[in-house]
């Protein structure tokens, strides 16, 4: 790993650790929920990043089908993997919060269920990519799935508005403005920023890794 890469990775990690620590230990606890509400500083940014990642996958897939440039395929693939990671973090953190608040690890609430479906769809995307050897075919088929799979994302987001369930409705991006106390909102937004920077850093690293794999396969004559 180059020194520059190591430094940027360290900076991203420190920023992420600082914002998460601020949420977990520094800001006051929620008046009603107490300390368990602090999970929000991980859960909400992870959920937003999952949406963002799958949107990037959608854009990368669309761009690949239009331009047939493998850079877009690498972007879509890397973003889908990170989206899967963030969706997993969302489900796990939400489940921990659910156990403390609702008394159960899982509920068949529309938001939870649609998030689980989104996770399985993109797990399928990653599995599909792993199962196709021919490079151009892999990129083409995955691009179509990356476009179709994105249909789920708005359904997940709007599920709390369309159906009644246990999961709370949006509290930040809602008509009439945010209902969160300003100090909590600032820390939450700082966490969203830190998660986003970490996402961009990881995305670039993952794309570079995929590019180097493509280059190696091309040199060895495997890339068709």
């Amino acid at each position: 790993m180059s020194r520059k890469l190591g430094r940027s990775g360290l900076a991203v990690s420190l920023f992420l650790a600082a914002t998460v620590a601020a949420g977990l230990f520094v800001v006051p606890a929620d008046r009603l929920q107490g300390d368990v509400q602090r999970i929000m500083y991980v859960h909400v940014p992870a959920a937003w990043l999952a949406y963002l990642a799958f949107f990037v996958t959608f854009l990368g897939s669309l761009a690949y089908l239009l331009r047939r440039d493998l850079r877009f395929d690498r972007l879509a693939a890397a973003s889908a993997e990170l989206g899967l990671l963030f969706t997993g973090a969302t489900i796990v953190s939400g489940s921990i919060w659910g156990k403390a608040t609702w008394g159960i690890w899982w509920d068949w609430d529309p938001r939870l269920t649609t998030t689980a479906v989104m996770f399985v769809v993109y797990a399928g995307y990653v599995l599909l990519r792993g199962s196709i050897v021919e490079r151009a075919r892999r990129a083409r088929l995955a691009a179509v799935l990356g476009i179709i799979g994105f249909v789920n994302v708005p359904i997940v987001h709007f599920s709390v508005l369309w159906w009644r369930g246990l999961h709370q409705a949006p509290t930040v991006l809602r008509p009439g403005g945010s209902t969160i106390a300003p100090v909590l909102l600032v820390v939450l937004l700082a966490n969203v920023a830190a998660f986003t920077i970490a996402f961009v850093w990881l995305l670039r690293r993952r794309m570079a890794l995929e590019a180097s794999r493509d280059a190696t396969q091309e040199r060895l004559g495997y890339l068709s």
Partner: protein
Amino acid sequence: MTLARDALLLAHKDLRIELRSRAGLAATMTLGASALVIVGLAAGPDIAQLRNLAPALTVIALLFAALVLAERLDAIDREHEALVGLWLSVRDKRAIYLGKAMAMTVLLSALGLVLWLLAFVLLDVRADVSLLGILPFVLLSSSATASATVLVVAIVGAGERRVLLLPVLLMPMLVPTLLATVNGSRALMASDAVTAAGWLVVLAAEAALFIGLGLLTYEFVGAPE
């Protein structure tokens, strides 16, 4: 109207093959009926509970049957490089997708009606729900399922990959269809026509969405390997 004409011709071809051999249709119907009976047995003998579960059991049985049917229809086209000939001879490739989706919709609808008949007998679905009332749900859920299945079959391609990936990719994609069919037919069983009509609209939207996506993207995924 080359697209519609070609699609109808291709759907007619697929249906004729199925009706002539009957092997695939018979096997699929047996599988669907077995799934209904086995899941019914697993749920227990409480008839009120079984009646409540009937829409879900029927849809799940249909889903399993759809997987087998899709596999069979695609395998026929891949035998002796038939798909290559088909791909080269049809000018607008969307016709292949549309034709396959239409044929599969017809077959799944027939299968769905048989499964609902079985549900009336085995799961004691109340007589005030007529088969005619269920028909729009059967047609629209078959259409949504078929249009998604044909596309996913093309994405996963042939061979070992399909065996592993077809259910993995298809099942989550069909969750909205499953929900709309189950909730809509359950509302119909409770004589709540307004709610049932609402779910029919959702099903129609899902079918239109899948058909639209299929028409837009099939050319990228349907080419023989």
